[in-house]
């Protein structure tokens, strides 16, 4: 190799050491990026969005955290609260900041901390700018649910729009709508129908039209009339209207945006903004484990290759190993790990295991994974998995006995009727499938999202909104939160709201929450 012939003095771009020591400069980053890109695209065949790498300070990193990693955001106190929380934790040393944050956008933006050493910069470029980036671009969920090309512009639009609303209608009024919309944002996504592409031009156009319509119908005389002057629907009309409302509706924010009778047009637009952003973030929790696993696997692979090719020295590679093993550490349940899996650890372990199955399968692997065992195309298999699965199905499909053994997983059955917890599956032949099934269920969006539907509106009476939460006994909504959220919902709807918690099997009403009409 070049560097053997000419010693350490070979310029980086001719294949020698990319850097040595901890210090980096922009040329180092560029050289590292180029070297990493060669491996990522050349050897791994990753397909990525164009990259943008931004160097930021720790203070800016706190800002990025606050906005869920988004570079622009509208003003709201909840972001301030999050900021103070992160800041306190960071200043008191309870929390280390991430080395990077990456945004699912096109171009894909990776934020790198200035404090990182040269090795860490290279590592996080491999991790974020290629690992995550490839995942964002190729995974089915992201492809179907988010539109990365417009998100930054849309956020900019949202910030501008909300700022203008604050000028026009006052900060308090805007805050009330935002508070309410935020409380409902988990119920503000379309779960089953996919997202329509964001179209910034159309969005701006619609906002403008709304405004123009408002202006055109403005008549100072009407201002003095009571707000709900037009409520005299006939019975037939009510039935017709109910059909038009498209009930039942799972997307509460969508329903409010379209149908809330007493909402000002700008309020609808703000609800829409919250809804769009919630929709954008919707896939992320469902593929978190895979996404992190993918990025970690990619950076481990690339850094190992860089070392093999003589582009980084032994000291740097030791640093890579050290920080990677920190990241993929999975403490046992009694060592502080609790019931939560470290997504990096599980994802990385499963992906490493897929490579092993593809290249050096054991008899057990051949029995469990006849379709991929020994197929010799580890990278292709991984790329297929990254593109087509989400956490739940990935576990269901690829969690191997080997990984279950390595993690020494076991399952507890927790029956509140019993005074004890029962260990009902461990890492043995009888337990593998049980554990795999249960673990997959943890990652099932159905279990971590609370699905609530609007089922009816009392159109002839007092316009009470009726909602339903299908669940089972012992799994009810947190009552205090539910009440407060319903108050918000009632504030947006303008009339009373009733939420019934209904047993999925029997149809019995388990609990009822109500919020009165607001003045």
């Amino acid at each position: 190799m070049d560097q053997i012939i000419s010693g350490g003095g070979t310029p980086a771009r001719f294949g020698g050491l990319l850097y040595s020591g901890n210090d980096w400069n922009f040329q180092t980053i560029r050289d590292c990026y180029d070297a990493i890109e060669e491996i990522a695209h050349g050897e791994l065949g990753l397909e990525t969005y164009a990259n943008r790498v931004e160097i930021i300070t720790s203070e800016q990193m706190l800002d990025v955290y606050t906005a869920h990693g988004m570079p622009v955001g509208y003003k709201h106190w909840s972001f301030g609260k999050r900021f103070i929380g992160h800041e306190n934790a960071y200043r008191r040393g309870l929390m280390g900041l991430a080395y990077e944050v990456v945004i699912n956008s096109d171009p894909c933006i990776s934020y790198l901390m200035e404090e990182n050493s040269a090795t860490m910069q290279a590592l996080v470029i491999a991790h974020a700018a290629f690992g995550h980036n490839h995942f964002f671009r190729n995974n089915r969920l992201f492809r179907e649910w988010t539109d990365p090309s417009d998100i930054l512009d849309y956020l900019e639009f949202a910030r501008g729009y909300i700022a203008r609303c604050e000028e026009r209608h006052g900060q308090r009024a805007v805050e009330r709508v935002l508070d309410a919309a935020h409380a409902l944002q988990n119920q503000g996504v379309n779960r089953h129908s996919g997202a329509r592409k964001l179209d910034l031009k159309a969005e701006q156009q619609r906002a403008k039209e709304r405004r123009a319509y408002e202006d055109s119908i403005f008549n100072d005389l009407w201002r003095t009339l009571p707000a709900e002057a037009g409520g005299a629907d006939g019975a037939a009309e009510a039935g017709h209207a109910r059909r038009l409302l498209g009930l039942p509706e799972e997307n509460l924010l969508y329903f409010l945006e379209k149908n809330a009778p007493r909402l000002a047009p700008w309020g609808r637009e703000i609800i829409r903004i919250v809804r769009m952003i919630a929709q954008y973030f919707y896939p992320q929790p469902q593929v978190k484990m895979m996404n992190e696993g993918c990025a970690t696997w990619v950076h481990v692979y690339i850094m190992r290759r860089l070392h093999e090719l003589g582009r980084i020295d032994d000291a740097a590679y030791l640093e890579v190993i050290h920080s990677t093993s920190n990241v993929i550490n999975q403490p046992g349940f009694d060592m502080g790990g609790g019931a939560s899996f470290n997504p990096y650890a599980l994802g990385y372990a499963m992906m490493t295991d897929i490579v092993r199955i593809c290249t050096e399968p054991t008899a057990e692997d051949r029995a469990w994974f006849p379709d991929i065992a020994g197929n010799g195309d580890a990278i292709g298999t991984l790329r297929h998995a990254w593109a087509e699965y989400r956490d739940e199905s990935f576990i269901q499909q690829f969690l191997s006995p080997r990984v279950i053994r390595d993690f020494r997983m076991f399952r507890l059955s927790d029956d509140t009727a019993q005074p004890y917890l029962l260990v009902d599956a461990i890492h043995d032949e009888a337990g593998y499938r049980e554990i795999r099934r249960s673990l997959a269920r943890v990652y099932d969006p159905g279990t971590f999202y609370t699905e609530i539907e609007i089922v009816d509106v009392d159109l002839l009476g007092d316009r009470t909104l009726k909602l339903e939460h299908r669940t089972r006994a012992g799994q009810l909504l947190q009552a205090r939160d539910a009440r407060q959220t319903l108050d918000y919902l009632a504030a947006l709807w303008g009339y009373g709201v009733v939420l019934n918690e209904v047993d999925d099997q029997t149809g019995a009403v388990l609990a009822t929450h109500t919020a009165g009409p607001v003045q």
Partner: protein
Amino acid sequence: MPARGRPLVARYRRSISIIFETASEREWCRPVDIIDRRPNPHGKNLENRRRVLQRARSAVQTAVRDAVARGKIREVGQGNAISVRADALHEPSLHRVFSEGMREIVLTGNREFSRGDRLQRPPGGGGGQGSGAGQAGEQGGGEDSFRFVLSRDEFLDLFFDDLELPDLLKREISTTENGVPARSGLSNEGAPSHLDLGRTMRRSIARRLGLGRPKPAELLEVEERIVALEALRPASAEELEELEDLRERRGMLRQRLARIPWVDPVDLRFRRYTIMPQPATRAVMFCIMDVSGSMTERMKDLAKQFFLLLHVFLERRYKKVEIVFIRHAESAEEVDEDTFFHDPRTGGTIVSSALELMRTIQRERFPSANWNIYVAQASDGDNASSDTSRTASLLRDDILPAVQYYAYIEITGSGAVIRGETDLWRSYRAIADENDHLAIRQVGDRKEIFPVFRDLFSRQRDTAEA
């Protein structure tokens, strides 16, 4: 930072291991931007942070005052952390919690369990959070309290939110000393550094347009044409005529250009500053405390709380606050802060000695024309009975006319014992009825310090008087 992209193709040719040589090269030739964002403005979230404070204002205020009630004024005022109850900033959402029934939990790190083992249920409900609650917990919904680190200014703002110094205005005007320059319109003369370029150029443009100053480009054009025509030879009669016209025009243009300047002295506008009188905000605070045998440590501690509060409060209003500590038993002396609070003394009580000393010091060092004078006196109300009338007359005739505000705090005994009025209290009250700027209050417990303080300085008092 300039974004720079380099085509990677050339180097791939000789790179060491290419597996996917044929992978679509256009894809991976897209350039990377490396951007240094560090110089970008920081503090994006300051506005959001401010909104949090605003939203939790009442909760923060309660927390701030609790912190003070616990007796750490100095430290808290230096910018300490305070905690507010989390529900002031709670963000509710609809989420499920597991309360009963069956669930399965997958854990890692099994060392000793085999199937069928029964484990004792850990205290506090199960081996982990219900998966439904995970979402909200992450957003901080589960916290009991929320910590802020307030800056000193934020802290004091919240702390003294509705408090105001009495009669501040009167004295400030009488003690103007310094001036600060303030903008006051424009003038047509001034120092070059005060030149208002925008306005000057606006006037210059108007004048040039009005007087028809030709544009230099016009002259250039004419000159070029002349050169071109002169180069023609032989020239036709028309061209000669044109040349003649142009020469004339050139002369005219040059003349006008020379006569009408680009910027004329009449265009010049300067920002004008006038010196505005700035009230001197100096204040002196006299702390007078009874340290006789009847004052216990607890009582002194209460007095100290009050003095500290007053000091922090005055510091916020005045740039400079001097403090004079006077303690007295049978006789009075001026001492430093440490001695004042910590050095024990015993003996009988003669209040007038302290007032006399205070008056002397004030006359010598803090003439009332230049200083805002505040007096805070703390005592348990004990006084030698022969001295009370002298104290009262001293206060009424000599001290009150000279000071801005006089607060008297009488620290009652254990709090459980309800005492009658002391002689000192009675005579002070008679004076207080006639003088608005003497305020007297009784304090029995640490918790009462701040309410009494607020009571003394609350804004309503001012407006009611006005």
